[in-house]
């Protein structure tokens, strides 16, 4: 009997599988797939004419072109390949926060698993990197459907804790992942935007297609507490005692500044940025993400 995982809804996955996961830039995969490749291949999609050079396969000569121009041209076609989807999920202590019956980690886990399922379903390879200060879980990219079982087992065993070292990990991934992969980062990004800028620029430099899901809890946005509260840091031992009504205004100012900076950072680094409050349904979040890519007009970033 197949094991059921609460963070994966097959029905949602089935509905979303109708929408292909398209990369915004050319990918380099191991096998043929539905994504563009930087190389020429044998697909049916015409790419260009090229002058014949000795050694070219004569079967690819375009005789009609020779008849018209009395010159030899070789007809080239686009190559299709699969992609390597690397999902980087923040598992620091702050991801444990949630006020809507679900923590940010649970939301991230569901989002990453569904996305990985969709990728593997369409023949792409999916890998997982979960990072906190102490433990890093890595699952290499595979396109085997059985790979999902290992995925499920690993991700269900993870308990977020400690401080985040996601920026350091992203720099490391930028160097270790082969070029032209699709990197999706799922986190609350509660750190200085300039740090994330460096990470994203590094990933883009390696020609990765980078997407960032920022998960926020509605309570973090509203900050509408009534009673005096001692706030305990979920990534450390620090605590702070405040009268919420006194500090609410300035909290909102700081939060707004941060969100705006994050948005600008992602825009300037061609990173697709999606801010998600965790009371939004997973299906809706992923549908928006997939449809935007299908139409080729992503909200953030540009196609290179």
């Amino acid at each position: 009997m197949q094991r059921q995982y609460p963070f994966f809804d097959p029905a949602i996955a089935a509905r979303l599988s109708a929408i292909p996961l398209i990369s915004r830039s050319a990918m380099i995969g191991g096998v043929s797939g539905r994504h563009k490749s930087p190389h020429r291949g044998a697909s049916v999609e015409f790419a260009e004419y090229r002058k014949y050079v000795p050694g070219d396969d004569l079967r690819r000569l375009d005789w009609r072109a020779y008849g018209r121009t009395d010159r030899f041209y070789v007809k080239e076609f686009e190559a299709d390949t699969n992609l390597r989807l690397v999902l980087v999920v923040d598992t620091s202590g702050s991801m444990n926060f949630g006020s809507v019956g679900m923590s940010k980690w649970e939301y991230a886990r569901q989002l990453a698993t569904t996305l990985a399922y969709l990728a593997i379903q369409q023949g792409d390879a999916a890998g997982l990197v979960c990072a906190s200060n102490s433990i890093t879980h890595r699952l290499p990219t595979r396109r085997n459907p059985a790979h999902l079982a290992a995925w499920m087992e690993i991700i269900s065993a993870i308990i977020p804790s400690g401080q985040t070292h996601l920026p350091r990990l992203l720099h490391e991934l930028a160097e270790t992942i082969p070029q032209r992969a699709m990197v999706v980062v799922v986190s609350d990004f509660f750190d200085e935007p300039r740090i994330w800028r460096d990470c994203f620029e590094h990933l883009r430099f390696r020609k990765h297609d980078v997407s960032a899901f920022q998960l926020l809890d509605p309570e973090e946005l509203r900050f509408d507490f009534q009673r005096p509260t001692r706030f305990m840091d979920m990534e450390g031992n620090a605590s702070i005692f405040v009268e919420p009504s006194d500090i609410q205004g300035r909290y909102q100012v700081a939060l707004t500044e941060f969100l705006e900076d994050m948005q600008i950072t992602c825009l300037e680094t061609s990173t697709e940025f999606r801010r998600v409050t965790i009371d939004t349904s997973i299906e809706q979040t992923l549908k928006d993400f997939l449809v935007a890519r299908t139409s080729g007009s992503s909200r953030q970033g540009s196609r290179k």
Partner: protein
Amino acid sequence: MGFLQPWILFALPLAIIPIAIHLANQWRYQTKPWAAMMFLLRAKTMHRGFDRLRQWIILSLRVAAVIGVVLAVSRPISSGVVAWIAGGDLDTIIVLMDCSPTMSATGPDADLSKHQTAIKQLRNSLSMFNASKWVMVDSNSLKATQFASSQSLLSSPAIQTSDTPCDWPAMLESALSYLDIEKPAQAHVWIVSDLQASNFSPSSPRWESIRDRLIAQRATVKITSIEYPDPPRSNYAIHVTDARWERRSNQRPTDSRVGMDLYLSIVIESTLHIDSASTIDSRSIPVSIAWQGNEIQASVDVSSGRGELKDYRVGSLDEAKRSLDSDSAQESGTVSLQTWGSVRLPLDGNLADNEDFFAADLQPIARTIVVCDRSANVLPVILAAESPADPSIQSEVVVVPPSSFDPQSLDGIAFLVWQSASPDPTTAKAIYEFVNRGGSLWMFPPEQINGPSVSSAPQIPEATRIKLDDEPNKLLEISWDEWNNLPEPISPTTWRSDVGLLRATQSGASLEVGELRVKKLATILGKLTAVASFADGRVLIAALGVSSTEFIVWATLPVLPFSAMASSADNQAGVVLYVTVQRAIESGIRNLSSIVNTWATAENSSSENLRFARLPRSQKWEPIITTEGFLSNQMTNHAGVFRAGAKIVAIHRPRLEDNAKMLEIGDWNRLFEGVAIKRLSEQTGSSNDLQSEAWRGFMVLLICAMLGEAAMSLPKMKQT
């Protein structure tokens, strides 16, 4: 600071409730694991300056609100605040009380009158003070009277309302005189008034000195004005303008008691200000006339706030006799032409002006004695005296030479004309008595003057001298210097047209005194006051006092060649002579009458009331018809009919008192410019005490604190 309910101050510790709630709230904090710590830390670093103080300010405002509630409920008195500011207990408290009839007016929705409300409020407020001296200046006596306590002050009969108008300048002068004499270390003056404009006499020149004296007392005297300015309800006042016997036309004057009818003239006026009165609809008001035990009902049509009942026949002397015969309770034998009664209106907004009184008797004959060397010298005066202006007055003129003059014949004489040398001492004494009784005396110079007679005039022994209004005997000192023939006729240039013999007529027209042409002039010698004088300072007419009409001395004769007073070419001069003669007769005849009509006035009022001054004060007064509840020495303050010896005195409420027009705010500011006065505007019939003002102040504090707290507690606008 004084409080009416000081035990409530024990609740002041409740002011720590906001602090306790704040601390409890802090103690009851919740613990919350939080992911977005970086924003909290960032917000904390922005928490500076006013934002740090904000919660403490809010806490302070909450504490202030609780304190405001407690203090307001404990009913602080504003006077207590004044005393507190003044520092310690007061030495003297002076209450200036308006006891005029308008203070009896009730408020629009109250049963209590202004006066009763004031007494009630003062009773509560003054009890909070520990003053060593309690002084009251009431409008009845205008005197500063000292009391042992506030209770005795407020229970004094002198504080009761009367029919006497309130003379505020005189009351303030009386209070200031007391302060000047006693020099208290700290005094508090309470002015209780209804702000009636006529009581304040805002045009009086006395205000300037009063204001200066009040400003000079500023350091030691605090002044509080308790005012009841609310207009009365619909209110009418009644006045008797005339009461007289008149003989029926078919009766011959053979018997003075036959065929006589009593006629009354009554005026009813709305006491509201004329602008308000003009809007009142026409209506008929019933009037009840009480006369000789009978109650006669009449009605007066009132339109635009005024109605008049002219020459209403009340009854005849015969009816009065029958009424008396049927009423055994009446004193027998009192039926005479001396009669009295009262008129009354139905109940309205002010009971004090619903009644007036009248008294009537036959007009005495206007008898004139002319003592002269030659009747031709004073012929115009004789002719004027024989022709009274009022046709109801009978006149008789007797001309006698000085040698035939009998001093005993001055009884019943209204007017004495003396045109001869100074009288001998015996005659002078009789003339003194005549003038002292209120008779009018004119003295003209003799035709032949033998020089000043001062030194040669016999002196009256001191013991036999008669005081004439506290003035020295002047009659024997009066003489004339020799006649001076003037090259050109001259006319007087200066005379008093406001009071006295040469005053303007009732219509306001001035007498043409300047038309008098004098050709021969004898200088008057004696200590008299000039009434009319020429440009060079010589005197034409002198009098005992500037307002006197009884004792007049002329410097010329009213005939040619001395003057052209009565010549046909000088009609205006003749009018002046005729009017002055009639005034002299009127003045003399008024005092011959057994009826005295006067108005209620304060005992030492500075206002002139000559008729009243002639009343026989030395005799015991007996009230005949009047209101009850006042002391015998306050009779002159109350309207009514009194018997004073052989005379009947009808005291009326002054008509000026019935004009309820309020003092304009501009007038108040002008009268008390520079004077620090705390004004408390109270409502008639209010059950609140005077401290309500302070109560309101603390309520304002409470509201301000709550509004401030609410404003500071509002969440800031969300930034978009």
